[in-house]
C-alpha cells in the first residue's frame, strides 16, 4: 500500500481533503504536516486535528510547520474560508493534540526512516517541503512524487490576474520545489473550479449535490458542508451562480485515484519571482528543446488539465458516507 505525507494549510476544503485521504482504504497516511496559508499556523493545526476526529479513523500524528513564507509578507484567505477557516461554526476544540516535533524535522525523520519512497500531497503553500529539502537534501531520493494543488495555466485568473493563491503565498518556496527535480503533478486551480468564461466546471458542486451530501446524515457530511459555507458563498458570488469549488479534495482524487484524470500533459514550469505583475505565476512552457535564450527546456511537471467530475463526486460521496 502506498504511504503518504499530507502537507496542509487546513481550512474548509483541506478538511474535506483530509477526511477523503484518511478514509481511503488504499492509502496509508503516515503524518499530516501543517503550514500557514489559508489561515495562520495555529488555526491550520487545530483544523487538521479536528478533521482527523471528524474522519473517525485511527489518529495519525500532526506536526506543526512553518508559520511564515520564506521571503514575502504572509497573506491569508480568511475572506474565503471564514475567520477560523471553517466558516465559524463554533466547533469545540479537538481533543487530539499536535506532536511536539517541528514539521520540517518530522518530514526529514519520516522520509529517512522509511525504506521505500513516500508520496507527498501538498494542499497549501510549499514552504515546508522547500525548507525540508534545503535542510536535508538527502530526503529527495525518498520522495516518490509530489502531487500539489496550485498554480494556474495561461489565461486563467487566480488570486492575482495570473498567480494562484497557494503559489502566491510563497513563490520562493514554490520555485525551490519546482526546480528540485522531484516528479511533480500539478492540479491548477481552474481545473478544480472554473475558468473565466463563467462556465460551470464539472468538478464544482451545485446546490442539489450539496443537499444530497447533507442527506447522507453522517457527522462527516454535515461537517464538510457546514465548514464550507463561507467558501460556498464566495464561489457563488465570484461566478454569479450557486456552486462550491473544492480544489484540495480534487487533488486528493488525482493523487489517490488517477483513473479520475481525463487529460494531462507535461511541461517545463518555472515560478516567476521578479515580475511586478507576474510574481508567483507558474510559467508553463510546453515546448521541448531549447528556448529563444538558449536555455534547455526540461519538462519537470505533469499538469492535470481535466478531471472526471462525476468520478470525483463519487469519491467525495463515498468518503462522507
Amino acid at each position: 500500500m502506498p504511504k503518504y505525507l499530507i502537507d496542509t494549510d487546513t481550512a474548509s476544503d483541506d478538511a474535506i481533503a483530509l477526511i477523503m485521504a484518511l478514509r481511503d482504504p488504499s492509502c496509508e497516511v503516515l503524518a499530516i504536516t501543517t503550514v500557514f496559508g489559508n489561515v495562520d499556523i495555529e488555526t491550520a493545526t487545530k483544523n487538521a486535528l479536528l478533521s482527523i476526529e471528524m474522519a473517525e479513523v485511527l489518529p495519525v500524528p500532526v506536526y506543526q510547520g512553518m508559520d511564515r513564507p520564506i521571503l514575502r509578507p504572509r497573506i491569508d484567505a480568511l475572506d474565503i474560508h471564514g475567520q477560523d477557516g471553517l466558516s465559524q461554526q463554533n466547533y469545540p476544540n479537538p481533543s487530539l493534540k499536535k506532536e511536539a516535533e517541528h514539521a520540517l524535522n518530522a518530514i526529514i525523520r519520516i522520509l529517512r526512516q522509511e525504506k521505500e519512497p513516500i508520496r507527498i500531497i501538498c494542499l497549501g503553500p510549499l514552504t515546508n517541503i522547500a525548507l525540508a529539502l534545503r535542510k536535508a537534501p538527502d530526503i529527495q531520493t525518498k520522495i516518490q512524487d509530489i502531487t500539489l494543488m496550485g498554480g494556474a495555466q495561461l489565461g486563467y485568473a487566480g488570486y492575482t490576474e495570473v498567480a494562484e493563491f497557494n503559489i502566491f503565498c510563497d513563490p520562493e518556496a514554490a520555485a525551490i520545489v519546482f526546480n528540485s527535480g522531484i516528479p511533480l503533478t500539478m492540479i491548477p486551480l481552474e481545473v478544480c473550479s472554473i475558468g473565466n468564461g463563467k462556465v460551470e466546471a464539472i468538478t464544482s458542486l451545485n446546490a442539489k449535490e450539496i443537499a444530497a451530501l447533507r442527506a447522507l446524515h453522517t457527522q462527516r457530511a454535515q461537517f464538510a458542508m457546514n465548514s464550507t459555507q463561507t467558501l460556498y458563498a464566495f464561489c457563488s458570488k465570484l461566478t454569479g451562480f450557486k456552486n462550491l469549488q473544492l480544489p484540495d479534495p480534487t487533488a486528493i482524487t488525482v493523487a489517490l485515484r488517477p483513473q479520475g484524470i481525463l487529460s494531462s500533459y507535461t511541461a517545463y514550469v518555472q515560478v516567476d519571482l521578479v515580475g511586478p505583475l507576474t510574481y508567483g505565476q507558474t510559467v508553463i512552457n510546453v515546448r521541448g528543446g531549447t528556448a529563444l535564450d538558449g536555455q534547455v527546456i526540461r519538462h519537470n511537471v505533469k499538469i492535470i488539465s481535466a478531471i472526471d467530475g462525476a468520478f470525483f463526486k463519487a469519491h467525495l460521496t463515498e468518503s462522507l458516507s
Partner: protein
Amino acid sequence: MRTYIIDTDTASDDAVALILALRHKEITVLAITCTAGNLSIAKTTRNARIATELAQTYHPPIYAGVDRPLIRVLSVGEHVHGKDGLGDMNYPEPSLQLEDEHAVDAILRFARTHQDVGIITLGPLTNVAMAILEDPKAMSNITEIIAMGGQYRMPNGCTANAEFNIWVDAEAAKIVLESGIHITLVPLDLCYGETEITKADRDHLKSFKTVRGDFFVDCNRRLIEYNQRSYDKDIISLPDPTCVAVVLEPSIVLHSIDVYTRIEVKSPLSYGELIYDFDGLQGQKPNVRLITEIDALRFKEMIFEAAK
C-alpha cells in the same frame, strides 16, 4: 467609408492581410506604415510594396518607420517566414516606391488632418508608440487600434506566455495600452484551430490558378515548415489576416471580452505577457476588447475571395 492606416512588419501572413484589406470594398486603406519585427525594416518595406502590387487595386502611400524596438535589441522571425519573409520564393523587385516621409510623421499627419482614422497593427507597436510619445493629443483623434498581438490561452506563441509582436517591443505595447486609445486585441490563439489553412485549403487556393491564390500558398512556404517543426501541424496559420478580418467584417467575431489589460515588462520569464484582469481585481475600466473566437468558416471564405 471606414478609413484605416495599416502598420505592418510585412512578412508572409502580413502580405495576405494587406491584400485582404486592399481588395475589400468596405474600407479604405489610407496608408501603409512599416516597422521592423518579423524582418528588418528594409525587408518589411519591400514586402509591403510587393503585396500592394499583388492586390491589383489601389496603391496607398507606403512609409518606412522605426527600425528597432524602443529599448530592446530587435529579434526577427526569419526562422518563421523565411530569410526574405515571403517563403524565399525570389519574388521580383516591386516597382512601387516608398514615400520619403517617416512613418511616424505620416501617422501623426493623418491623425491631425482626419477625424475618423483607425490603425490596424500587424507587427510590433513601435511606430504607434512613437507617435503617441511625440503627440498624444493628435493621436487621441485615432478612433481605434486593432492589433494582432498577444496571447490568450495558447502557450508558447513565442515565449511560454508572450506572443511575438508584443514580445518584440513590450515597452511600446505598454505605451499603447496606457494611451487611452481604445484597443481591440486579436490574439495568436485565433489563427490556430479551425482557422488553420489546411492542405485541402491550400489545394483549393491553388485550383484557382490565380497569381494571388498561388502567392497565398507559396509565400507561406516557410511558415508551413515552421508549424510542422513547432506544433507538428501541416498548416498555414494566418494571425494578421484574422486581425484584418475582424476589421473588415465585425460580425465575424463570435466572442469577445472587455477587459482591463496591462503588460509585464520587467520579468525575464514573463516579459511581454499581457495581464488580463478578468475578475476586475484592479477596479479599472476595460481598455481592451479581447477577441476570443471568430467564425472560422467565414474567415476562410474571405481568404478564398481575396485570392480569386
